[in-house]
């Protein structure tokens, strides 16, 4: 269902909206495919307490961007990149769309101007 997909994208965008969570994703991406980082390793460069970092990881888990497994006292996190693939596809489409829109607007304006210069039909000959 498209609505479920939209809701998942919404969670991903919410997760990406916070700089600390983006930093965590960056760290995890440098761990390589399937690589893990401890929660305390993720928290340290952000100068964050363990509970604060854990809260951010929970948001990332909710968006299915991160998977956490608890081994003894360690919270081992790894990146699950698939939802990012959807999100990048969607956002890239959106950005390109802005550019395409303004180009379409350029063409429309040109047409409107030649329509005004020559209201009875034939396009104005190119003389510029």
């Amino acid at each position, binding site marked *: 269902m498209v609505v479920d997909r939209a809701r998942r994208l919404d969670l991903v965008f919410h997760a990406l909206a916070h700089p600390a969570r983006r930093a965590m994703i960056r760290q995890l991406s440098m761990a390589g*495919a399937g690589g893990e980082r401890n929660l305390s390793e993720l928290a340290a460069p952000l100068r964050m307490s363990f509970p604060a970092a854990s809260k951010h990881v929970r948001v990332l888990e909710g968006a299915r961007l991160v998977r956490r497994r608890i081994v003894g006292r360690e919270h081992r996190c790894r990146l699950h990149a698939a939802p990012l693939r959807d999100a990048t596809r969607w956002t890239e489409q959106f950005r390109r769309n802005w550019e395409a829109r303004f180009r379409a607007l350029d063409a429309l304006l*040109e047409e409107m101007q030649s329509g005004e210069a020559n209201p009875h039909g034939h396009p104005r000959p190119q003389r510029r």
Partner: protein
Amino acid sequence: MSPTAPNGLQVSTPTDTTIVLTRTFNAPRRLVWEAMLTADKMRRWMLPPPGWTTSVCECDPRVAGSLRVVWKSEEADPAMTLHGVFTDVVPHERAVHTEVMVLGTGQPIGSQVERHEFAETRNVTTMRITQTYASKDARDGALASGMDEGMEACYKQLDALLDQPA
């Protein structure tokens, strides 16, 4: 074609809650206004993502007038709705409206105030759109949708990972 330099879109973030888009057009502002804010003209350039079509487009640029654009796809109707109300209008000069984006049948993905300003010099119009969000988080979220270089760098690092099978 016009010999003028490309009228490229510029994006800036002068405050924590705003995004400013600036673009010039080779036309007098009266026409830019008409193209931007008249429903039958809006349909021509407010192109939806591939595979979507515009099912409703209404725009009444007067104070308390409303704005409503609905896109549908094969999978969903509505797929996305944009609606708002005009709060300040000086014809051909500026228009301010609220804007709420809703995905599917009810997931709001953002709300903002959009201020459009048009300045004309010798048949060239500079359009400035100021989007004001409710919070810095909301603004950053909007930036994350494709415009923010920080995210871009982050995505680039991820490219290698993304290319591998999940």
